[in-house]
């Protein structure tokens, strides 16, 4: 490799994603460097969440190429909607974690179990190791005292912080946030953003964040991408996008949300 910039960790090359007749991503090109914190903004239905869902292998795509750390999502000769074996998909998933809009905590498990279960089952940690890891992470998100509670006993903000700890317990290289504060009452948004903001200082963690919290996006991201109709129509540093947007659609969108 002769170029100075590090090889991208994530690379979408001409990816097209359709739901029936609806094209959600249209010849989509996008690269993310290792450790980069990227925020995706744009009107709803513009394909931002789909980018995350494809990266998490929750949705297949039809055309183009997607790689993560040099690994192709689709295998040559792969079958099924993902054109890849389950084994291959699991290999990819081992590098990626996701935080959902609706938290998706397991309602029958204690907070501790929510965080420690997958490390035991999937990573093969001992119960003790996994619980020690969970205790550390719960302390990090400020919920050490809630480890024996069940999700229904927590506020939305607390649930989302548990969900972040749960995702981190798998030690992903890439962490995806799909509108993590959209389902929260306004007064609970701050506590979740504070946790995500802390994570943004983690040098090695690559973060992709879909959000409508523009002020927050400006504070934590290295780069902001504005989505429109299945493509990135403008991207750049938060300063550039928020103070001097060049594309008329970006101006229009920012005017409507920053009102």
């Amino acid at each position: 490799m002769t170029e100075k910039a590090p090889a991208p960790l994530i690379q979408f090359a001409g990816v097209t994603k359709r739901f029936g007749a609806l094209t959600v991503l249209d010849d989509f090109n996008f690269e993310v460097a290792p450790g980069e914190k990227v925020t995706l903004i744009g009107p709803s239905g513009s394909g931002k969440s789909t980018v995350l869902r494809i990266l998490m292998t929750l949705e297949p795509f039809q055309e183009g190429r997607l790689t993560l750390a040099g690994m192709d999502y689709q295998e040559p000769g792969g079958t099924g909607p993902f054109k890849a074996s389950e084994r291959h998909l699991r290999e990819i998933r081992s590098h990626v974690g996701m935080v959902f809009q609706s938290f998706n905590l397991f309602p029958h498990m204690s907070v501790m179990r929510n965080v420690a279960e997958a490390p035991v089952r999937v990573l093969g940690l001992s119960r003790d190791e996994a619980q020690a890891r969970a205790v550390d992470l719960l302390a990090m998100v400020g919920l050490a005292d809630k480890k024996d509670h069940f999700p229904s006993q927590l506020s939305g903000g607390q649930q989302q912080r548990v969900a972040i700890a749960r995702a981190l317990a798998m030690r992903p290289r890439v962490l995806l946030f799909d509108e993590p504060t959209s389902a929260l009452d306004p007064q609970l948004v701050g506590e979740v953003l504070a946790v995500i903001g802390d994570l943004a200082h983690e040098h090695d963690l690559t973060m992709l964040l879909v959000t409508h919290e523009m002020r927050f996006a400006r504070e934590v991201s290295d780069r902001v991408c504005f989505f429109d109709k299945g493509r990135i129509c403008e991207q750049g540093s938060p300063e550039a996008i928020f103070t001097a947007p060049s594309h008329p659609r970006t101006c229009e969108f920012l005017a409507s949300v920053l009102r």
Partner: protein
Amino acid sequence: MMYGFTWDTATPLTYAWSILPIILIGLTVTLKAAAAGFAIALVLGLVFAMLRRSRWRSVSWTTACVVEFLRDTPLLVQLFFLYYVLPEYGLTLPAFLTGALALGLQYSAYTSEVYRGGIEAVPRGQWEAATALNMTRMQTYRDIVVPQIVPRILPAMGNYMVAMIKETPVLSVITVLDMMALANMIGERTFEYLVPLTMVGLIFLILTLICSAGLHRLQKVLPKAGIPLR
């Protein structure tokens, strides 16, 4: 005389008392058959429900056909088939096992539908969270899905359990000596059917009442969110 107990037909009461031990021997067979049959139905029903949701069309389609066949043919036919036809192909099972298997097979078709409804009611976000945590499908079923559907499927499963208990007398047609078969034999020998058959009816009533009460209690103590895992 049967199993070493002699009956005393002097009055209905002495008659009932004297044949009670024989009926109770039959009761243990009835209970064992119902327990074995229901265990088979619980396990196999879940397997069917999971196979039906398989990504491979051929698997889900074949499973759907098998389930439909089991559901739409009479238990008695299945019973005779397993008991008389399979031995011709070299598979001879004792009558009790054949009976339990037939009950289990037929009811697994019913329970698989109950499981299917329960599984479909689990929000998509739960599956997606499990995928994001890189769990396999088996792990997802075992740790996430099944514990959550238990409270939801409990009432329907309970109904099938009671129904199955009540259907065990049909096993007497393939020579299983259950409560009903023994009561019938006592009747044949004494020409007094009323007392033994009434006893069998009452014992079934008590049995199903106990089951219903137990299920009711279980439903009350089990949290709505599922089997709690700490």
